[in-house]
């Protein structure tokens, strides 16, 4: 069966694919952490492009948006904490590079061999009219529980992240009895001010 993707689309997929991998490689090649962050973003955007070509509009958009934001945050982080945020002091921050490269290459080869030797069952699939609708129905229907659990997971993440990342809590602001008249904040603002 011939692919129902147009030639242009196939070409775009191929180019974007190469781009995404190249950007991925760039992440670990560039000196600067900030640049690495943007390389990663590029890789994600390329994948989002491929998803777009594969008729997954919603997912593509979500990916692009999420990753843009995330990488922005990451860039901030880099600048806040990292030793060499802007690549001003080039230094190798790697260990066991050869071994890691071997593992990476090995895994790729293994997967590629698998991919090219397996007999893929690409028989006349019936495509839904609207992939986004299909996804929405799944989330609210067959996979609702998954989403519920993920929701609880996000709740837990907020809690856990807060616990780990912040040193100050409500008792620092309002006293051990939560009865301070004015919250004691290092930076003025916030609730009950």
């Amino acid at each position: 069966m011939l692919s129902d993707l147009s030639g242009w689309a196939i070409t775009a997929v191929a180019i974007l694919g190469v781009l995404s991998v190249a950007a991925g490689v760039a992440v670990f090649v560039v000196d600067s952490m900030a640049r690495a962050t943007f390389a990663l973003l590029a890789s994600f955007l390329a994948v989002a492009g491929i998803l777009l070509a594969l008729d997954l509009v919603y997912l593509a958009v979500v990916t692009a948006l999420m990753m843009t934001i995330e990488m922005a945050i990451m860039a901030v982080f880099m600048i806040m904490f990292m030793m060499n945020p802007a690549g001003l002091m080039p230094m190798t921050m790697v260990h066991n590079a050869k071994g890691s490269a071997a593992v990476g290459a090995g895994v790729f080869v293994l997967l590629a061999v698998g991919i090219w030797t397996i007999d893929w069952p690409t028989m006349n699939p019936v495509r839904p009219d609207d992939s986004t609708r299909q996804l929405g129905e799944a989330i609210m229907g067959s996979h609702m529980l998954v989403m519920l659990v993920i929701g609880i997971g996000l709740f837990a993440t907020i809690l856990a992240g807060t616990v780990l990342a912040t040193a100050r809590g409500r008792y620092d602001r309002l006293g051990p009895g939560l009865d301070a008249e004015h919250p004691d904040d290092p930076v003025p603002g916030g609730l009950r001010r």
Partner: protein
Amino acid sequence: MSAVLGALVLLPALSGAALLVAGRGADRVAGPLAVAVAAAGVVVAALVAGTRPLLSVPFLGIVEGGDLRLVVDGLSAVLVVLVAGIALLVTVFAVVDLPADAARGRFFGYLLLFVAAMLATVTAATLPTLLLAWEVMGATSYALIGYHWDEPGKPAAGTRAFVTTRAGDLGLYVAAGAALAATGSLVLTDLESADGGWADVAAAGVLVAALGKSAQLPFSAWLSAAMQGPSPVSALLHSATMVAAGGYLLIRMQPLLASTGWAATAAAWAGALTAMVLGAVAVAQTDLKQLLAASTAAQIGFVVLAAGVGATAGGTAQLVAHAAVKAGLFVAAGAWLTALGTKNLTDLRGAARRYRGIGAAATVAALALAGVPPLSLWATKDKVLAGVDGTALHVVGLAAAAVSAVYAGRILAVVLARPAGDEEEPGTRRVPALTTVVAGVLAVFAAGLGVLALPAVAERLEAVLDVEGEPSPGLGELLLSGALALVALGLTVAVVRARPAVMEQLSRSPLASWAGLGRLLSPRPAMALARALATVDDRVIDRAVVGVAVGARRLAGMASRADDGVLDGAVSGVAAATRRTAAGSARIDTGVVDGAVRGMARAFRHAGGAARRPQTGLLHQYYAQAVVGLGLLLVLLLVVR
């Protein structure tokens, strides 16, 4: 009447046990009590000999003959009376012979137990009964021989006697098993009907047991050691009991021996050779009690010979007569030992003249031992020899008879000689009258029991024993043996008087040390084996555990090296592993010396160290190892379907 039969055994047994439990507190009453019990025993023995009762007490189960069964038949009747009688006399002797401060409770306790065991032995009708009595007799003989446990060497002598006789006893265990296998029963008389291979096994077992108990070749040496016991013990053990038990057993089991074809012959030859060899040994002794001991084995040899050739009546007569003769001699020897403080032949010079009463008794007994007509052993021996078919056997028997005259002559020549003056030997210088009486009674029997071999009496005896038509010695044979004995006796006396040096030379010969028989049964090889096995046990078996542990350690080491190899390159890992294995095999040896647990612990410590090595604390190495591990699992999953 079976209650009486029970009393025959239980009376001495229980009173003996009571004396033992009471310990030294009973010393005062022990002697009289023992005499009373022994006297009662004679009465009871006479009673049961007349009534021939049967007693059966449940003991073991499942198979026939597992009970404790006592039966008095003809043979038993004779022996019961004999044993009880000798026991009484010896007990009386012991009462007067033992020192005043001796632990009499213990002595008479064991003595009575011993007598009970002997009485049970001669009346036992089933194998468990027999073996029980048989072994208890051995154990009590151990206690009696080692009575003076605090004197050096005495306990060892008891040990030796017990272990040697027990070595023979093993035969009875085997015989019992064979009896069960062959007949499905443990009744003694059933064994006669056994056939096939099991009969051979049973006969062999019985033979070994009897030879051991009777101190026949090759077990004779324990008898020498047993002379360490007090004189009354010797008098009892070597006359009517213990050594006699073997002869008794063979006579009783004669049909079984005969049925196998070879066992009877073997017994006959064992008896004849013992009579010969131990006779020679006796000749060479310089110690009166040792001489008597060897002569005991020799004389019982005739009983064994009789059992071998089927001369039941002759054997029984020999047994009875020998009991009286030997008991008398031992009583005399004991009396002299007490009085003169020595049992050394040369020091006993003129002992018989010094104490005339006991001297006379001893002389009679010695003459009987020599086989001088018309005394008892002359006749009984001939009665035995009359049953012998083979010429060779006959010749050996005759020669043995002559030898007995020689050693008897040796005693006589010494004790009847003029006393050489009072040497400085410790002793009471006194022979109690009671001892003389005992010896006298025994001498009378020693002289007179020859009638048992006279045709008229012998027929009665045969009837009692339930055997028929056993050959009696012809007149010619009687004369020949009598003459032989007289000549030998005379020659010996002459030689001893004229040429004491000959005797001295004899006493330096190997015969004096019992022809090396002691060495034959030496415990040394057993001890050596024991030590070797113990070493193996400690060094090999226990250490094998270490070996396994060390092996495990090697394996773990190799595993850890393989683990390193994943990270550092397999080749160097394998090379290192090989190298370490080689070094490790050397270390196994050192490991072998250490304790098992330590080795085990060390092995695991090493393996544990290896197992902890991947836990480097470095996360990227965790990543790498996880990836490698998962990769291996992937390979496993794909390869092993």
